């Protein structure tokens, strides 16, 4: 189990002062995979490196399996090599002057084990990542994906109390990435390792995490299960960062009552959606977030009906398993995701509706350009 409390890290140079991590706190339960997700530059790597001990935080406390490794108020700092953590780097960091086997066995050398035991465990780790045939290869003579596996085997070999992953898949090509993604998840569950996983790729985060922590500018925005984060994001930032969504601007017309939907006045009429924070007040500027796949085609509805939109088809593309369409509805562009049997002619006018339970109403906020950077 890892507990991080009130972690802060400030990078200071002559010209500027960057609060890379600004009061972050979270808990990783034993055997769980927690993902730090956010656009690049939001402080994920720095957080992870503070846990690893490669960065010395300015404030906060970190505990690993009950033992404090960092306690800034008490000036405790356990150096990284005594923390018994495994880490997989974004750039693999495979030692090029060693063979595959040596790379893995090196992680066991400090543990006062017999030669034969080191050999056995290193081979076991290589087997786990399916590289048992490559033990004697010089490490640089491997493909990117294989190097990544060596890095994982090396991190696993020393039986660390937790594994730290820093964007481990970002240097792989798309196909390999999705393969490795499921394999990583399988491995992590098989070995039952407590893990922190850093990524800026939301689909990766959704696929492999037990919990997702969304970060923005050095702070935590929200934390939740992947399904919650996707279905009912609690902030506009999360809604927009994770998956595709339509964000329709409006103002609150009637606040939620007893867990029911809020009503929002928009340019396209009144719409209803859930208020995940349960604190919206009448008159507040909000955005209604509807996922493209939650929109369904209906016949002409009664004028003035709730949750009804009309749009003109701008483009429709057949994707095999689905049809994706972009509609023009007044000023807004609406993205839709229909079943594969829907036929849409360009320029056709269609009526859409959605379930109020699938839409969320979020307080409007300025989102600057952070998301473009991701």
């Amino acid at each position: 189990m890892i507990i991080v409390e009130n972690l802060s890290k400030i990078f200071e140079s002559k010209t500027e002062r960057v609060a890379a991590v600004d009061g972050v706190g979270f808990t990783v339960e034993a055997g769980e995979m927690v993902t730090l997700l956010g656009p690049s530059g939001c402080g994920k790597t720095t957080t992870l490196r503070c846990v690893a001990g490669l960065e010395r935080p300015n404030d906060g406390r970190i505990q690993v399996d009950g033992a404090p490794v960092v306690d800034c108020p008490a000036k405790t700092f356990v150096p990284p090599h005594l923390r018994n953590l495994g880490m997989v780097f974004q750039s693999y960091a495979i030692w090029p002057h060693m063979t595959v086997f040596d790379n893995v066995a090196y992680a066991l050398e400090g543990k006062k084990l017999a030669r034969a035991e080191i050999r056995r465990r290193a081979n076991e780790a290589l087997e786990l990542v399916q590289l048992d045939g490559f033990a004697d290869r010089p490490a640089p003579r491997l493909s990117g994906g294989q190097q990544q596996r060596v890095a994982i085997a090396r991190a696993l070999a020393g039986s660390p109390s937790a594994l730290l992953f820093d964007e481990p898949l970002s240097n792989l090509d798309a196909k390999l990435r999705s393969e490795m993604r499921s394999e990583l998840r399988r491995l992590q569950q098989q070995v039952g390792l407590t893990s922190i996983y850093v990524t800026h790729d939301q689909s990766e985060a959704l696929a492999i995490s037990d919990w997702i922590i969304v970060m923005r500018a050095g702070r935590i925005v929200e934390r939740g299960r992947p399904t919650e984060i996707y279905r009912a994001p609690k902030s506009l930032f999360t809604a927009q960062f994770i998956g595709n969504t339509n964000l329709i601007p409006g103002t609150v017309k009637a606040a939620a009552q007893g867990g029911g939907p809020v009503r929002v006045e928009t340019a396209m009429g009144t719409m209803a959606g859930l208020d995940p924070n349960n604190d919206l007040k009448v008159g507040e500027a909000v955005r209604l977030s509807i996922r493209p796949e939650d929109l369904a085609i209906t016949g002409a509805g009664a004028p003035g009906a709730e949750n009804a939109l009309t749009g003109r088809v701008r483009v429709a593309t057949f994707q095999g398993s689905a049809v994706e369409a972009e509609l023009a509805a007044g000023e807004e562009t609406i993205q839709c995701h229909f079943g594969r049997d829907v036929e849409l002619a360009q320029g056709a006018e269609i009526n859409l509706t959605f379930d109020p339970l699938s839409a969320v109403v979020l307080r409007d906020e300025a989102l600057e350009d952070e998301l473009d950077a991701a």
Partner: protein
Amino acid sequence: MRRLAALRHGLANWRTVSLCLLIVLLIYQVIIPFLMITWASLKTARPGDAAFMEWGFTLANYVRAWADAAFIEATINTLWFSLTSTVMAFAGGLFLSWVVDRTNTPFARFIGMMTLARIIIPGVLITVSWILLISPNIGMINAVLEWLTGIKAVFNVYTFWGMVWVHGIEMIPLAYLLISSAFQAMDPRLEEASTMTGAGTFRTLRRISLPLIAPAIGAALLLLFISTVETFEVPLLIGGRADVRVYTTEVFFNTARVPTDWGLASTYSMALLLISVVLLYFYFRLLRHGERYQTVTGKDYKPRRIDLGPWKYVTCVASLLLVFMITGLPFLIMLYASLLPEDSVSMIEPLEMLTLENFQALFNEQDAFDPLWNSTLLGLGSATAVMLVVSAIAYYVHKTRIPGRKILDFLAFASIALPSVVLGTAFLWFYLLVPLPVLGTLWIIGLAYLTKFMPFALRFVSSSMQQIHVELEEAAQVAGVPWWKNFFRIFLPLLKPGLLAGWFWVMVHAFRELTIALMLSRADNKTAAVVIYDLWENGSFQALSAFGVMMFTVLIVLVTISHAISRRYGIEEQT
């Protein structure tokens, strides 16, 4: 379509012809000097005698050299001088690169910049300025120490260790450059990965950091060693009086004295050549080995700086002092000496005695500026010629599949193994044999410079050339664009950074070169560096200093102008 085919055909022919011309040029420029020296070393007849050209060889020269105690002594001196200077330069370079790149020492960037700024002060001026500082008679530092303590001539530059000191100091910037690029090529993540597996600082250092950096460091040491073996200024100006003979000076004196000892000169040349070839072989092997260890990524590299606490002021003062000795002191002492009255015999004079008369004398003398003009011409001319030849070579080697292009690469690169004294000797003798009217003109020096600087310039151009994809050119060809338009519109703009950086490098080095220019100098083709040597021989250190200041000023003007030009064409990063 047919027009296109014809065009391609014509182009192919044109290319083959020019390739052959290039190969011939390179054989003439590079292979002949090698042959010339080897041939002469196997002959007892002198160039010009009929017997010299006959088929028939002897090892008499080698036997004679081997039996000569002076040869053994020169061998030991050369190796020992190279080893000690290398160690000294390496230690200094290591210290500076650590301070500048890895610690939080104040003024680190300034220290790094000033170290590299020294590279534009001509080597001969550095040597002379250290003579002015610590020679037993006139040395400024000695004079000050005598005034303070009453002890005479505390330091003596005219000794073996004096040579090591001056040459070691002179090579520190090169050592710094090599060492810091070796460190920068290493990904700090590799060390962090070791730490994360539970390895402490010492095991990480022993098992990861040192093995990874070793090839690059080994290569750096070898390069420093080779540079010392081939160096000429310090052995000539200091070693002569210190009676420490090394290969380079033996080649020079055996060639320059009357009557010339052709046999010994060529034997020493061969020994020099042999050392240089063997060491270069190992150098390139290490270099390739080191490159294999360089990880491709390093995308999130940020050097970790060690917080030295209060010690940072100690490192700051120490490295500023060192940099002052490397870059500041030589220039200042030269400037000061140029202002001393002509008849003064001491370096310490009251301030009101300082005068501009040395400069006045310089301006009054007719022809005083000819050597400066010669150096400028040589700098600009050889830089341009070298870049033209080298671009053509790089084009064939990297952008065509014509058979024979590999020979070009090899030939152009081979001359790196020719030490300057050997090159100078070979050119001198060759043009004594061949009745081309170049002896005693700038042309002969320029031709030698073409051979000398080609391998370095080739490196600049090759790396930019490799970045241009073949498709770019083929696309243009398919579009029916004539090749010359293609060249000017596509190649030249993309090559510009490499071309300008290489041109700049050759210009500076050709301007200040001493060894070759001295060996090939006659009355009318003296360069600035040669005049410095002449003035030093005459013992007039005031006039010498004044001329040195002028030489340095002209170089700075040239550097500034060409820098401004390359700025305008947008290549800030490369130089």
